[in-house]
């Protein structure tokens, strides 16, 4: 009878752990999007008047990078230019000594992930630093993520001695539907609007 009972418990355990869920699979593309912005707090953006933008998009895929100018990239560039102008900046050619420079990048990262069944360190510590000997509890899966990254560089106060340009603002647009041009103006509006300090007019 005891045997039957313990079988029941094991069966229940397998049944209960076999289901995994994805709580965000019901999000629409727009709802899944995440806008992350960072800025240099020491910078007063009011000192800038003009900007220029790189005429192509940087494409970063894992360790490789290059530039591209597809229709998608053109749309993104023009969305950013329009938003910068509405914020009070004047677009000038790179040769006309702009105050800030804008670069846009498409970044795709592929990760190899290792998932492990979690064990607390309690038992390992209990037996004097023993680890767990169950390598079959690990599983591997690959994920790939693409996102847009928009950066603002301080060209006005370039450090001449160290030859560096400071990134004073960066925005990452992540989530689903990032190649849908219908969303571009809304995406760009979002990252600028949550960075109120960028507005100079």
């Amino acid at each position, binding site marked *: *009878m005891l045997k039957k*009972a313990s079988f*029941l*418990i094991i069966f*229940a*355990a397998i049944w*209960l*752990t076999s289901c995994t*869920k994805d*709580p*965000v699979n019901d*999000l629409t593309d727009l*709802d*899944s*999007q*995440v*806008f*992350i*912005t*960072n*800025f*240099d*707090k020491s910078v007063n953006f009011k000192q800038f008047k003009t900007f220029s933008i790189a005429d192509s998009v940087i494409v970063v895929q894992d360790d490789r990078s290059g530039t591209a100018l597809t229709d998608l990239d053109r749309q993104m560039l023009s969305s950013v230019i329009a938003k910068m102008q509405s914020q009070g900046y004047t677009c000038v050619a790179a040769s006309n000594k702009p105050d800030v420079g804008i670069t846009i990048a498409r970044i795709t990262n592929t990760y190899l992930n290792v998932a492990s069944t*979690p*064990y*607390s360190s*309690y038992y390992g510590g209990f037996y004097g630093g023993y680890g767990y000997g169950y390598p079959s509890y690990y599983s591997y899966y690959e994920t790939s993520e693409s996102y847009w990254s928009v950066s603002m560089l301080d060209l006005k106060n370039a450090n001449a001695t160290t030859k560096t340009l400071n990134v004073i603002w960066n925005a990452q647009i*992540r*989530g*689903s539907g990032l190649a849908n041009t219908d969303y571009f103006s809304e995406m760009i509006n*979002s*990252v600028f609007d*949550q*960075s109120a300090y960028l507005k100079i007019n």
Partner: protein
Amino acid sequence: MKKLIIAAFLLAGFAPAFAQEQAPKLYTLPSPYDRYTTYLVTARLTGAVPIGSFKNDYIDKASFENYSISLEWVLQNSFSIGGEIGYSYFKQRLPRALYTSGDQTISAIQTRTVSQYPIQAFVNYHFLPKSSAIQPYVQLSAGGSILDYTVYYGSLADQRQKIRPTYGVGVGSKFLFKKDGSFGADVRVKYAATSFKYDYLTSGISSLNTSIGLFYRWW
């Protein structure tokens, strides 16, 4: 020889009568559930309401995605001991909002989740005898919970998985469908708490759980 045959006939006549007289006494014996240590298995569906800082800081939405199965040994005294394995899942979605920390601002729709697989040992104390159709009890339980805390920012996840201690205090009652029967219902209200600290959770996960269950007992 004749006498023996007569005696045999007489016996044959008497023996059934004797047996018939004994028969009623068989049924007056206490039920096997009173006489032996018996087994009882219960499957429960639970509605859980977050309480305390778990409710205030993280999720305040009730959850009905909680299940458990328990096996217990009903001892000959008022106690029973056993084990329970369960699954519980809390989820809450927040509208798009800005989350600022330092120089960074994140705009996202947050989906907050906690799932747990608690594995616990428990002791029940029953107030009424096993022959009673209604058997109220109090319960103390303790064990470990395989815990997954995930906050989604849009489709990006901040996840933490741990095994943490968990415990519970409950009151409940068993209701037998039939006197001395094998099947019955179980109703339980239980306070459950798991110790866990990370990000939004500063003092653990606690909830008030009301469950209805079905049990089967055998010996």
